[in-house]
């Protein structure tokens, strides 16, 4: 019952935030909406015993990433409201069409119960199995997932290289 209440509240929060991202004309509001959604989802993680993930979500995502976003928003300028009138012909109509079909698909999946259909029967009974504590998650991360973990190093290297290559202009001017 508690889970239900939390779910309803947080789902509502997440959805409101998501809609805000999509609808807000001011970029900062959109960012705030995203923040709301991120936090709501973090709560839902906790409800599902994904503690470690929830923590990372709040720290890395809602913290670092959103800060970066806001930083860039400030850089780009907050005072300009986006003109949300559609200029591309048919874009809106077709988007609506796509959304309607997608919602229909979701509806079909929900009604047919496919979302609740679990391929491995009976394991969900033990919540401890998926209790994502730091130890358990970290243990997996450094054993079974160690290669993926290593691969993220490459990803971050690339991100760093990319940021330097794309954003630094001064060095280049000096050269030429």
């Amino acid at each position: 019952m508690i889970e239900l209440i939390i779910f309803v509240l947080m789902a509502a929060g997440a959805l409101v935030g998501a809609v805000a991202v999509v609808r807000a004309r001011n970029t900062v509001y959109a960012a705030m909406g995203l923040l709301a959604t991120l936090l709501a989802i973090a709560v839902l993680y906790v409800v599902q015993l994904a503690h470690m993930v929830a923590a990372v979500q709040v720290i890395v995502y809602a913290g670092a990433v959103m800060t970066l976003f806001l930083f860039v928003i400030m850089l780009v300028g907050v005072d300009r409201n986006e003109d949300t009138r559609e200029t591309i012909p048919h874009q809106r109509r077709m988007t609506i069409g796509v959304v309607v079909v997608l919602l229909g698909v979701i509806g079909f999946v929900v009604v047919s119960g496919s979302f609740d259909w679990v391929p491995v029967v009976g394991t969900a009974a033990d919540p401890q199995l998926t209790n994502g504590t730091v130890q358990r998650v970290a243990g997996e991360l450094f054993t079974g997932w160690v290669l993926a973990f290593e691969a993220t190093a490459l990803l971050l290297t690339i991100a760093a290289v990319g940021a330097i290559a794309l954003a630094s202009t001064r060095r280049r001017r000096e050269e030429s």
Partner: protein
Amino acid sequence: MSLVVTPGWYMTLAAILFVIGAVGMLTRRNALVMFMCIELMLNAVNLTFIAAGRALGSLDGQLAVFFVLVVAAAEVVVGLAIIVAIFRRRQSASVDELADMKG
């Protein structure tokens, strides 16, 4: 439908969030906001991972989320760098003005 919150509820919520994010991609012209919508979609993915993992009794879902997070972070860095670079030149972050190349 019983009032017990099953993983399906989360997954449904995630699906809806994903669709909302996608709609944002298609309707907003500010590159930053579009990018936020992608973050939204990735979060929906994460929620799905967690819910599915819980239903399956597998920790793999949560681990996958980590990597999605890392990817998202890397994308943010690169993406924001590109947006900043473009903004420097054009004083605008609207993707609708980026149509030099077409056909």
